[in-house]
């Protein structure tokens, strides 16, 4: 049952991503990107990351995409106009680079990452299914909070400084006169 769900959401994600890249209207692109993000959230649930799936919907599909749509509508980019796609040379280059990248990443995934996967090795310290067990024992949030507030406490605090800097930067950049 899980592979069926995985493949249907994977197909939906790829289809929506392709439509996002090829739609002429920026609003349509943004809405297809939301579909991709929702299907990715569903896939996260299948990969034992329930909390991240919730955050994905709240932060990405909720906050970031609303910000994008807000700017698109503020700049009045939703109306019909000439396409912003590159010419045939640019399309060929984009297709070639994309295909080459899939090939390279596929080779890396097959040769490097898949090596020893499914067994407990030095590269993969957790046995199969251990993460789901951990999640059941500690809860979806407890499993994440433990490393976040112990091992990664300093990066977590630095993130707050980053967000503060981003807020100040956005206000300074977007304001006409300070």
């Amino acid at each position, binding site marked *: 049952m899980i592979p069926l769900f995985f493949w249907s959401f994977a197909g939906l994600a790829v289809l929506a991503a392709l439509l996002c890249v090829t739609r002429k209207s920026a609003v349509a692109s943004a809405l297809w990107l939301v579909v991709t993000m929702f299907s990715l959230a569903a896939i996260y649930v299948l990969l034992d990351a329930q909390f991240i799936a919730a*955050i994905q919907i709240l932060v990405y599909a909720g906050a970031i995409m609303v910000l994008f749509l807000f700017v698109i509508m503020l700049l009045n980019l939703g109306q019909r106009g000439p396409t912003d796609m*590159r010419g045939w040379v640019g399309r060929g280059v*984009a297709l070639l680079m*994309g295909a080459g990248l899939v090939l390279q990443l596929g080779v890396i995934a097959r040769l490097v990452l898949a090596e020893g996967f499914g067994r407990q090795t030095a590269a993969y310290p957790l046995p199969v299914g251990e993460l789901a067990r951990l999640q059941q024992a500690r809860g979806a949030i407890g499993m994440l909070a433990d*490393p976040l507030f112990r091992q990664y406490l300093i990066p977590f605090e630095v993130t707050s400084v980053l967000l503060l800097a*981003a807020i100040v930067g956005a206000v300074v*950049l977007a304001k006409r006169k300070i």
Partner: protein
Amino acid sequence: MLLGPALGLSAVLFAIGVGGVLLRRNAIVIFMCVELMLNAVNLSFIALAQQIGPEGQVIVFFVMAVAAAEAAVGLAVILAVYRHQESVNLQDLNLLRG
């Protein structure tokens, strides 16, 4: 186990994002393609977290925070550029051309 398919999906989504960045000229759409690439990387982190440990999911948390900061600042930059140029088409941004 879904690691192989998840990494494949991540690679395909990342490549679609790269193709979109190369294909489009609208700055906002290019920005959305960058978000798509970030999402693809998040997917590979989560797929690998299944056997490496919950630290993979913690990294996704940080990636999302950085993506939110990047979206806020980037869209403010696009707004400032639009105010200056009356366009977000990258072809019109040729101030540095001799």
